[in-house]
């Protein structure tokens, strides 16, 4: 981040403050953008209606009104709930979202941490939210919450595997776990000797990309896979007993995680923050890079929410069968094929 302000010497606390502000923007902006553009507007247009129109021009500050509403609400805790765990659960879920963005590269120097095991860390941290959800389901002292929490745990564990296996294909092709390295590999890659647009891995890893998107849909508990919150079966699952601020935290967590996963998908498969024909070390990319990444995130988000608004919910057994008997074998075959081709060329 500090290279953004060339020529200005910043002390440690100033850099830290900038990083905190940066991660807040990186979490809240995509979350707000996703909710407004996709949940409010695109969903409405797909149902031939307009969505919120009153708060601000075209309802653009509806989200602030919603936040205000949630903050006013009474914070209810069930009598038999485990109070401490009940309070802490939404923060665990949100924390995993924030941590996901720590390894995210936004430009040549615009990153929070440039780790050699970046994608490994991101995938590991994304599963921390399962613990938060399970805690929420258990601590609520509510049968619907418990069923929802257990469903969420089963689903997230089942879909973590195809997701990781889909990523392995990319890692093999790029030859590195470092996210900056993966971006560079795509930028410097070439398609049959033509290096015009680099080699975004969506072209060579199309199967991996599709598996990753489907697994992401399940990880985010978006609609074809929303059994943990299935409102027609188990009220709202693990969120049943939450209201006010804590519900808002779950809500932000859901869409911020959608943003984070979209960013990971954009980095792994769509070339990340890099632009074709622009040098990777160009200082301009520190400013343009985040915008490029954001645009690609919106593209991935569109795919996620398009599927969400189109398909009805799976049955619980179909969900598990789909992960274990279809997605995982396919991604294993994908890995084998990638390895064979990597060795061959």
């Amino acid at each position, binding site marked *: 981040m500090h290279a953004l302000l060339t020529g200005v010497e910043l002390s440690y606390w100033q850099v830290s403050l900038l990083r905190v502000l940066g991660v807040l923007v990186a979490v809240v902006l995509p979350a707000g953008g996703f909710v407004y553009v996709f949940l409010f507007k695109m969903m409405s247009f797909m149902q031939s*209606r307009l969505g919120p129109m009153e708060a601000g021009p075209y309802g653009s500050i509806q989200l602030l009104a919603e936040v205000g509403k949630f903050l006013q609400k009474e914070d209810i805790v069930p009598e038999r709930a485990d109070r401490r765990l009940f309070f802490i659960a939404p923060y665990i879920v949100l924390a995993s979202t924030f941590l996901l963005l720590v390894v995210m590269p936004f430009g040549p120097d615009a990153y929070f941490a440039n780790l050699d095991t970046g994608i490994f860390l991101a995938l590991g941290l994304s599963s921390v939210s399962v613990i938060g959800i399970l805690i929420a389901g258990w601590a609520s002292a509510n049968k619907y919450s418990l069923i929802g929490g257990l469903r969420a745990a089963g689903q997230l564990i089942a879909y973590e595997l195809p997701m990781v296996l889909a990523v392995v294909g990319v890692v093999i092709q790029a030859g590195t776990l470092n996210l900056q390295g993966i971006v560079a590999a795509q930028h410097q890659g070439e398609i049959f000797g033509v290096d015009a647009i680099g080699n975004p891995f969506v072209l060579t890893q199309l199967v991996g990309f599709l598996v990753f998107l489907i697994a992401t849909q399940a990880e985010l508990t978006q609609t074809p896979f929303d059994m943990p919150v299935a409102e027609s079966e188990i009220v709202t699952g693990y969120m049943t007993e939450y209201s006010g601020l804590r519900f808002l935290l779950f809500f932000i967590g859901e869409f911020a995680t959608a943003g984070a996963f979209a960013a990971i998908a954009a980095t792994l498969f769509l070339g990340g923050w890099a632009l074709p024909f622009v040098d990777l070390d160009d200082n301009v990319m520190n400013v343009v890079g985040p915008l490029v990444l954001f645009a690609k995130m919106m593209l991935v988000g569109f795919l996620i929410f398009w599927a969400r608004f189109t398909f009805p919910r799976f049955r619980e057994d179909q969900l598990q069968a*789909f992960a274990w008997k279809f997605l995982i074998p396919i991604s294993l075959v994908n890995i084998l094929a990638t390895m064979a081709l990597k060795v061959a060329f």
Partner: protein
Amino acid sequence: MPALPKLKLPGLFTGLRITFGELIKTVFPKRGIRTFIPAPSKGAVTVQYPHENESPAPRARGVIALKEENCTVCMLCSRSCPDWCIYIEGHKTKAPPRRPGGKERTVSALDRFDIDYALCMYCGICVEVCPFDALFWSPEYEYSEPRLADLLHDMDRLGEWMQTVPDFEPYEAGSDAKIRKVPR
């Protein structure tokens, strides 16, 4: 080994095409050369209510209007109302004879005719049962009140709504029945 859920791929893609098509139809409604300018407010089928009014079907059951002069205080509507939401009071009075030299007539006059729209369930039995063409359906729908008790609308208010009662529509071709007239 239980069979895999059979993937119905064409159906999945049809679903995606339909939702995307609806999105395009809403954001870019067909209107000649200007089709390419996004205009969701024209493409959406919904109406932004407080700013623009919906136009209900002419025979929509919006509110019940009362033609006071036709009412004979027979109480049929009040008695047939499942919710008991019609309150009627009346008195007998003398009316001038129909023909010169005739006898004075005894008629019933309304003192009170209130309908409590907080109770009314819009079944329309009162309109059906009225033998003297005093009650009519009007498509008017903007009569909500901040207080529940204010939904008890009185004779004058019900009379005002007579202006909004539409004419009866002709029956289907070949019908012998006479078209009823709305008393104006």
